[in-house]
């Protein structure tokens, strides 16, 4: 097992990794940028190292700064969290070349799954139905030709990273041409890589993903599915498990197909396979995320597993030590992403001082957040302030408990999306579990809020 881990991330996930390390008796070092000097993770750190200025290109996205910090602090492993360099095979390889372990899939596995088009082909061969799509787009002419072949509407997606950044759905060649430039610059800003590809857009789809855990020796389990259909412009807003749209038979078929395919394709460590589910219950594989995900607590609430600890254990070379029959999923959980953004005004990101922060409490309520009263949200990074996760024996109980928890949550001094969550919890389509990924975008979120208030 590792003796000291560098936490190469910020915000709530830095805290989450810190907690896993503490539980496992491993020392941790927080790598932070100048803008995060006052962060909760730094305050709680055993050790902290300033790696660079606020600009992420020179701090959280700088492989050399992070690795140098790990070496200077005497770490033997690096946990990349999510976003930033979490799926960067070059970084993973640099970490290994310096004798340290990257907590995630080994570099060659990351490289095998790095191309989204390549991964679709690979997992398609191992039995997963895949969504029609293009390879990497060379230029606009190539994009137009590929979109014609696939058939509109199509979704433009950045090849690096996820989180909905740099994504646009377009219905015509004209829209495609206009959107390409925007997507390229968004992808460049978010992932330092502007390569794009196309995917067939399914109308009225749901977004369902499967959590898998696979060790180095080819033992793997799935930990059920998560439904992430509540989105706004391809950004997840609320996640839940189990999916309210699937029967037990469908879940079983999806999860079994997913774990079978990734084990056969030689995947290793924690991963999430994302699927689109169409109106008729058919599922199509879209991509795999080779890292811990924002919404992992939903699965932890159902399974009782500590997924970050599992990730660390597997990276250290330990065998899984349990089988599919040992993974038991209980009840229902919802996760609400609390973001510093103005829902009523085009989700404009906000920064500034959180004058008062009070986390909700009570049984089966979990708040993963790096906020504290007086904390200043820096303007340089993601707008996520934390995640509220609530469990119930069934969906109705989880929703009822969520309403109370959302009401207890106080974040003053900065505009957040809490009103959107309140509106969702009162919305018939959501309550009946019949929503698709365009629930919010169809009417626009400002209209959605007004509708809910009326």
């Amino acid at each position: 097992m590792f003796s000291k881990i560098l936490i190469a991330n910020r915000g709530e996930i830095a805290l989450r990794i810190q907690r896993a390390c503490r539980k496992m008796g491993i020392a941790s070092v927080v790598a932070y940028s100048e803008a995060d000097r006052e962060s909760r993770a730094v305050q709680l750190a055993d050790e902290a190292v300033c790696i660079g200025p606020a600009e992420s290109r020179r701090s959280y996205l700088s492989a050399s700064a992070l690795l140098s910090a790990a070496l200077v602090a005497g770490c033997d492993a690096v946990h990349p969290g999510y976003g930033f360099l979490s799926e960067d095979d070059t970084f993973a390889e640099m970490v290994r070349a310096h004798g340290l372990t990257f907590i995630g899939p080994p570099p060659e596995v990351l490289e095998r799954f790095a191309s989204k088009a390549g991964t679709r082909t690979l997992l398609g061969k191992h039995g997963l139905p895949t969504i029609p799509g293009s390879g990497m787009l060379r230029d606009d002419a190539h994009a137009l030709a590929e979109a014609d072949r696939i058939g509109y509407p199509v979704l433009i997606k950045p090849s690096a990273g996820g989180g909905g950044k740099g994504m646009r759905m377009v219905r015509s060649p004209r829209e495609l041409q206009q959107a390409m430039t925007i997507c390229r610059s968004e992808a460049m800003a978010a992932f330092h890589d502007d390569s794009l590809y196309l995917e067939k857009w399914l109308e009225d789809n749901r977004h369902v993903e499967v959590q898998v855990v696979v060790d180095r020796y080819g033992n793997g389990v799935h930990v059920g599915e998560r439904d992430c259909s509540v989105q706004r412009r391809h950004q997840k807003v609320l996640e839940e498990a189990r999916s309210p749209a699937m029967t037990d038979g469908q879940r079983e078929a999806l999860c079994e197909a997913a774990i079978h395919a990734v084990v056969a394709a030689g995947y290793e460590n924690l991963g999430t396979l994302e699927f689109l589910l169409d109106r008729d219950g058919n599922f199509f594989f879209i991509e795999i995320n080779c890292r811990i995900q924002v919404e992992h607590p939903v699965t932890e609430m159902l399974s009782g597993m500590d997924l970050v600890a599992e990730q660390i254990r597997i990276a250290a070379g330990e065998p899984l030590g349990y089988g599919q029959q040992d993974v038991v999923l209980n009840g229902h959980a919802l996760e609400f992403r609390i973001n510093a953004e103005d829902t009523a005004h085009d989700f404009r990101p906000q920064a500034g001082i959180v004058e008062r922060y009070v986390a909700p409490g009570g049984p089966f309520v979990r708040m993963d957040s790096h906020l504290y009263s007086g904390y200043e949200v820096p303007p340089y990074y993601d707008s996520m302030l934390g995640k509220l996760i609530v469990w119930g024996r069934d969906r109705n109980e989880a929703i009822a408990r969520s309403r109370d928890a959302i009401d207890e949550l106080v974040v003053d001094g900065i505009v957040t999306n809490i009103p959107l969550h309140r509106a969702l919890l009162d919305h018939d389509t959501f309550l009946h579990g019949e929503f698709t990924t365009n629930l919010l975008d169809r009417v626009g979120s400002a209209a959605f809020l007004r509708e809910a208030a009326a």
Partner: protein
Amino acid sequence: MTDEQLEQTAQARATIARLADEVVPILIERLAKSDLGELEVRENGWRVRLRRPLADGAAAAAPVAHSSQRQPHPVMAPASSGGPREALRGVVASPAVGYFAPRIGVEVGSKLRSGDPLGYVDVLGVRQEVVSPIDGALRGFEVESGQAVEYGQPIARVEAEA
């Protein structure tokens, strides 16, 4: 070495020479024109990566709405203390996280011009220069040779000429 190994070594040398002659100059030019921090190409199992020195580059632009006007971080800020800016002048802050080594010949009392190197920080074997922020005389080093430093950590103090 066997003949085969010798031939492989010779081939590898030839490839390195070709990459250095043909690929590297083009990459340098591309990197200089772009605002990228790093550029990498892979070819036939070879990989060439160029990295811009970290200290080079403008401060980040704030990409989002902000409720209060914030002063941009001074490029040479000390690790802690937010004292008045005048007091910061003359503090030589580390440009990166790594190991510090002073420049041979630079010692207390040495006269320095703004931009003169007084040592470097070793970042994974790449040297990043530590330069004087002002014209003046070196008052002293805050860290020892070979000591680990973090970004922004005070490395030395330079006193302005009266």
